[in-house]
């Protein structure tokens, strides 16, 4: 009987620094599997964020650049514009992409930059110790919203997939989850689609992934999966918000 399951070549042997129950490891693995399947490791450049995944470059076996907080889409733009033959993706959290990096992500998406952004949304700042994120849920307790997020004071959580889907240029915008196997299977398909669209030289592709942060949510991994499914998924609806097929006229689809 042959080997049916093994570590992807694109994934390194290093132990990650992620907390127990964190879904970054799942997402890393999905990305590595797809990079192997598409055989693009030799021309792949990842762009790491500032946040929990700041050390992502230690866990993959291909070229990586580490961006300043929020600037990954600008870094990826620089790489892809001067080297269109490279495969480029950014890996960003909610503080990085939806707060400090809002300008960079909107404009890269709107220009139709030909790279992919993986957006890990766990509704909290992880690396800095559990502060309120732009995606923190109403009433959610964090270290900077100790009485729960007050939407009268700081507004409603940002829906990045919907926001970016309002732009005409991007080719592919989707929101998936990685909190249970049934979601993970779909998430992998979505990431592979996004990567394939980039290889087809289509415009910007974006995959939002609803994730868990048991440590900063102060829950067990099991509780956090339940909370994510009950609370996050009822606000952040999963699905494909934009596909190349849904683009009218096709002017920017490719």
């Amino acid at each position, binding site marked *: 009987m042959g080997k049916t399951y093994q570590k992807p070549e694109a994934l390194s042997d290093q132990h990650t620094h992620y907390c127990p129950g964190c879904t970054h490891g799942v997402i890393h693995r999905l990305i590595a599997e797809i990079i192997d399947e598409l055989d693009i490791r030799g021309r792949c450049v990842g762009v790491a964020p500032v946040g929990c995944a700041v050390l992502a470059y230690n866990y993959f076996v291909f070229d990586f650049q580490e961006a300043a907080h929020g600037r990954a889409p600008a*870094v990826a733009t620089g*790489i892809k514009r001067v*080297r269109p033959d490279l495969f480029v993706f950014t890996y960003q959290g909610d503080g990085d992409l939806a707060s400090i990096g809002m*300008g*960079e992500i909107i404009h890269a998406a709107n220009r139709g930059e030909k790279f992919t952004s993986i957006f890990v949304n766990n509704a909290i700042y992880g690396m800095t110790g559990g502060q309120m994120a732009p995606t923190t849920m109403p009433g959610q307790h964090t270290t900077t919203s100790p009485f729960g997020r007050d939407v009268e004071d700081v507004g409603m959580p940002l829906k990045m997939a919907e926001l970016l889907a309002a732009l005409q240029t991007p080719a592919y915008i989707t929101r998936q989850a990685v909190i249970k196997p049934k979601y993970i299977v779909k998430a992998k398909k979505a990431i592979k689609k996004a990567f394939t669209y980039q290889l087809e030289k289509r415009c910007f592709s974006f995959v939002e992934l609803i994730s868990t942060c048991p440590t900063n949510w102060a829950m067990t991994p099991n509780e956090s999966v339940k909370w994510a499914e009950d609370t996050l998924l009822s606000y952040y609806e999963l699905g494909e918000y934009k596909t190349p097929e849904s683009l009218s006229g096709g002017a920017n689809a490719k």
Partner: protein
Amino acid sequence: MGKKVLMKGNEAIGEAAIRAGCLNYFAYPITPQSEVAEYLSHRMPEVGGVFLQAESEVAVAYMIYGAAGAGARVFTTSSSPGISLMSEGLSYIAGAQLPAVFVNIVRGGPGLGGILPSQGDYFQATKGGGHGDYHLLVMAPESVQEAADMMMRAFPLAEKYRNPVIILGDGLIGQMMEPVEFHDHLRTDPVNNNHWATNGMQFRNSSKPNIVKSLFLDPDELNENNLILKAKYERMKKEDILFEPYNMDGPYQKLIVSYGTMSRVCKTAIDNLKVKGIEVGMIRPQTLFPFPETAVFEAAAKESCKAVISIELSMGQMVEDVQRCVQGLRPVHWYGECGGNVPTPEKVMDVVTSL
């Protein structure tokens, strides 16, 4: 040398970059340097290069980071408030040891300030601007020709040190039209950056990933990285100081230190004083970092020299470096104006003779 053409400084800077083999340009419009972007928006497509108008100067700096990190020769141009926004990125670029060229066509500040010639960004360029222990290699041209020459020199220097180089002009250098000759065939060959650039493992036949980063969580590793940076700055001081001595052979009693646009006015003042029988010498730093420390010290130490004056379009920034170099040997004075009024030669003559 090629044919002499009449060109605006900003356009000459853009053309010089292309002649230096830099075919990648990211920028955001700001007065008084927007002509660089306008010029390159049609020139870059002609030569098969990359031109992109970014959403902000913040983004520009990271496009430069990404492009340089991927091993491409890349540059941008901006003006003072824009360079402030890029300074976060400059710190990262220096920390990650990436070669890139920045041009600051300086305008008056602080804040929005004004759009006329200024040298108020001396501190920002030579002492930091962004956070952390780093330096830029800073060059300051006094003419359109020298701006073009420095552009062509900047790329090999950035690559030699894997460090950002900044050219400090001002509104006059950028806006003025002057005759300029471009060197032929000065297009420098791409350097071999396979040992650090994220240019794709398969393209360099390697199984080892390259990582472009400035994060070193281990204190010993960060210290080690900063020692590497320090060694580069020390090497710059040994190998790449540039300055022009002016009227230094005579028994001058006064020594001017001045650079860029201001130094041109000083040259006229020195020539006029010479006719009157008054000898004034000048050191014109062409690199502001590394600063011509020994040259300034030795010029001040000359027996005939009684006083030194730093003349600059700021409220006294370079004067601190001049004081540092003169080491108390002679009195060091300052004269300058801000706001965009460039002092006349007559004013400089009055100031120098009244010392």
